[in-house]
């Protein structure tokens, strides 16, 4: 497997002698260290296996890689930042080189962040790379999640990895929030203030929770060191641990691959780690890191010096969280005030609590549970290693687009003030648009997406049924002309017919043969209904019989049995179908 056919580039040059191949001789050339390690660990076997492990190639597989590399860049630059950052809310008077803030009373956290930005050589570039890579990490992670969802890569056996990924996604945004809250500037302090308000609305335990988190009244001096310990120790430990499990499962289960000629459920087609994938994936790390450095060099992010130190009675207009917290913030902007109730003297803030505290975990629980739900509905218990084209699962693709639409409505709603200013629109109208849009747009997105998928599938069918135009015009004895189409499936059309036909689950009778109602009948009815929802109008791939039928013109032998053809009745629908295609 590891021996590729010889190429001219591999050919020996003049004076070269082929290497000898005695067992152990190759290892000796590597030097003593490898042997020393193998003597003590036996690592040669697993390392040898890993080196020839095959990974399939596709641009969309790089999305997860971008997330992974951004996370590594975050860890690296974050470790640097800890050398200068002082995680303390203790007061100090700033005397660094940023003149406008000299003499201002502020926390040590803010002062040290200013020092990193202005007084430590290269400190600003590290800080900016850190923040940009955090944003990139979560963007890449989300888009990677889209890829996995829409191609059905989460199906058996990869449900566990999808669930781990959902937890990783949730942890990543909490990690991000803890991180951008640390500098203790006015903007991040406002974010913490809002978080305090959220937690305070939790029914029954809200106030105790707040005093526990803040170690007393808001803001206190405990929140910065506590966020710091969460940001650099607790959450990264969980992130790295779960990430290791995530990537470990990818190795163990072998990567999925897109369908194509020669690719089956039983194989992996791609390039081996040594040398191709090592070079490509290793090189890609440097590209991601390099692009992050370039962005950090030319695009300023989070200019904390412009906001000033945190003061609970001051605020800047257009206060906004980092993008990944936007959807929760948007939900808070949309929930109307009348959702706050007072019951027996106790206040239940349904205008805050659901958007601030429930939404976040809810989104990720729904995400994590989806594969199990879909498996139940489809009754599909097989292993899947070939990815689906999104069009070939119209309902899932529709559900995904509806979810993305709902998320986007909330995300855009968190920018309603900026939009109102930039577009010169009424903020009230915008808010109402988003409020209604949250309910109307997702079903619309579902419907549109599903229709587009079905149309694309029909077009795939048409393409295959049409066949290859040979350019040969045939004249029939009765004077009609037609072009002969090749009925052979061309290799590039394999992608159009490779997917599995689907049909809704059939409902078993509600009573058994003795007339006794089966206990599971209700659940089964729901399951059958959901299955119909998924598959009732499925467009299945062309079968060889259908292709043969589509190309049956009856012309070749009409001289023998002309009347039979027209009388069979079968030819008519095909001719009309053909006519539609010409």
């Amino acid at each position, binding site marked *: 497997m590891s021996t590729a*056919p010889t*190429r001219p580039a591999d050919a020996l040059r003049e004076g070269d002698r082929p290497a000898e191949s005695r067992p152990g001789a190759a290892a000796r050339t590597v030097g003593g260290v490898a042997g020393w390690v193998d003597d003590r660990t036996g690592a040669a076997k697993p390392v040898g296996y890993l080196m020839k492990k095959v990974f399939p190639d596709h641009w969309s597989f790089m999305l997860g890689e971008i997330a992974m590399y951004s996370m590594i860049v975050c860890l690296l630059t974050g470790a640097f930042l800890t050398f200068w950052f002082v995680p303390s809310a203790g007061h100090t008077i700033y005397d660094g080189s940023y003149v406008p803030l000299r003499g201002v009373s502020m926390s040590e956290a803010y002062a040290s962040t200013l020092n990193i930005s202005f007084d430590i050589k290269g400190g600003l570039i590290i800080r900016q*790379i850190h923040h940009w890579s955090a944003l990139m990490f979560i963007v890449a992670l989300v888009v990677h999640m889209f890829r996995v969802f829409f191609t059905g890569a989460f199906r058996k056996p990869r449900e566990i990895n999808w669930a781990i990924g959902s937890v990783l996604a949730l942890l990543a945004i909490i990690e991000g929030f803890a991180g951008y809250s640390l500098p203790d500037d006015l903007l991040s302090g406002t974010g913490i*203030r*809002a978080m305090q308000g959220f937690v305070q*609305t939790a029914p029954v*335990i809200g*106030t105790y929770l*707040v*005093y526990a*988190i803040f170690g007393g*009244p*808001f*803001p206190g001096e405990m929140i910065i060191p506590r966020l710091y310990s969460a940001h650099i120790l607790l959450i990264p430990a969980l992130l790295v641990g779960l990430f290791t499990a995530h990537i470990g499962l990818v190795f163990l289960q072998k990567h999925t691959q897109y369908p194509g000629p*020669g*690719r089956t459920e*039983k*194989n*992996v087609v*791609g390039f*081996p780690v040594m040398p*191709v994938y090592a070079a490509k994936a290793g090189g890609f790390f*440097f*590209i*991601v*890191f*390099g692009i992050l*450095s370039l962005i950090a060099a*030319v695009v*300023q992010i989070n200019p904390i010096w412009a906001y000033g130190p945190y003061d*609970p009675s001051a*605020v*800047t207009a257009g206060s906004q969280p980092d993008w990944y917290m936007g959807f929760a913030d948007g939900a*808070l*902007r949309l929930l109307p*005030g009348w*959702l706050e109730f*007072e019951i027996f*003297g*106790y*206040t239940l*803030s349904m*205008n805050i609590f659901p958007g601030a505290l429930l939404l976040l975990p809810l989104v990720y629980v729904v995400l994590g549970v989806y594969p199990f739900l879909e498996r139940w509905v489809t009754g599909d218990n097989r292993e899947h290693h070939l990815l689906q084209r999104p069009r070939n699962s119209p309902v899932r693709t529709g559900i995904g687009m509806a979810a993305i639409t709902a998320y986007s409505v909330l995300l855009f709603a968190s920018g309603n003030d900026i939009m109102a200013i930039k577009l010169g629109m009424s*903020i*009230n109208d915008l*808010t109402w648009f988003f409020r209604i849009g949250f309910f109307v747009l997702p079903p619309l997105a579902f419907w549109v997406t599903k229709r587009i998928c079905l149309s694309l599938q029909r077009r795939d069918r048409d393409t295959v049924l049409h066949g290859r135009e040979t350019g040969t015009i045939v004249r029939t004895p009765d004077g009609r002309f037609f072009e002969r189409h090749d009925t052979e499936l061309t290799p590039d059309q*394999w992608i159009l*017919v490779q997917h599995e*036909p689907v049909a809704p689950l059939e409902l078993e009778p509600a009573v058994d043969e003795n007339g006794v109602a089966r206990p599971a009948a209700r659940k089964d009815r729901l399951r059958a209904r959901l299955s119909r929802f998924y598959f009732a109008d499925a*467009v*299945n*791939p062309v079968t060889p019989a*259908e292709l043969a*039928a589509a190309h*049956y013109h*009856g012309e070749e032998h009409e001289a*023998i*049995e002309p009347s039979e053809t027209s009388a069979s009745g*079968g*030819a008519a629908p095909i001719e009309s179908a053909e006519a539609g295609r010409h």
Partner: protein
Amino acid sequence: MNEQDTPTHGSEVGPTGHGTAVRLDQGHIIGDGGIPERFSNPGLPVHVPRAADLDEDAARRAEKQVTTLFGISILGTLLFIVLYFLIDVEETIYVPGIGVTSASNLALGVTLALALLGIGFGAIHWAKTLMPDHEMVEERHPLRATDESRDRVVHEMREGGNSSQLTRRPFLKYTLGGALGLFAVPLVLQVAGSLGPMPQKSLSLTFWHGGPSGPGQEPEFRPLRLMRDPENTPVRADEVTVGSVYHILPEGLLDLEEGVLEEKAKAAVLLVRLQEDEIQSEKQLDWGYQGIVAYSKICTHVGCPVGLYEQVTHHLLCPCHQSTFDVTRDCEVIFGPAKRSLPQLKITVDDEGYLVSEQPFAEAVGPSYWERGQ
């Protein structure tokens, strides 16, 4: 068009339908069995060699490109080192399209990017031009372990349970389960119990009640002067012209040794003067002084300072989530996610003509919480 996977369905298959005698005009089809149900996989496409696979010159060109990229990386690293020492951290530079920016940030970032991108693009170009591009095929095996392995695990576990007498002596099981279930409680208790104090009354009190209002503190009311923030000077009623807005803190707050931010977070007040005839609420007029009214600046939604005041409409807007309050209507919510009006501070003037509080806030300021109404 019926697209279900029902190969026996005849409506589309038409002439190839079964059950009838094979007609001469379809003699190339041997009944249904002649057509497989699915298409078969055509197999891997033929490998197309690249230029560098066949042509030594192309390979040498590719080699040159890769080494150039690696060279650029080395150059970037060297430049980074030089510029690190050369450029002072305080130097700024004007760059078209970016504006004035830190020179060292720009220089270090760009050279670092060169060093990294050179390696990255070099390695990938190498992989794409010179490394073998034959796709390899690796077999997959079912992930599931064999039945024997599964049985062995179950057997070993059972055997372990039996030989350790766990199954024979159930009290071992119950007490061990209980001990393991409980041992985490002390740790959880320590964290949960010691993270912070009980809030007590501190959420419903503010500095306007007469002094520091943290947990366990119950200040006694005394009238406090309204002080400008940050100047910390008192405000005379006749200085407040119609339409002006002041940030107000209670007298003594800024002189505190500690807890300034904690008190500020509850006690911040906005002072506005309206025309008396613009005020639509009797209570609002009573609690103010000649059209001068004082309201808590802390939003009743989630506690951001209500920072934006529109002088023409007398609307207060919170920049965090756009709750809008109408000052002429006792700061009622007229739009947005907040439910409650901003609490009003009852004010009057003292003997010297300075504005003072007449009583503390009548309700808790800031965001809602469960026991707020108690």
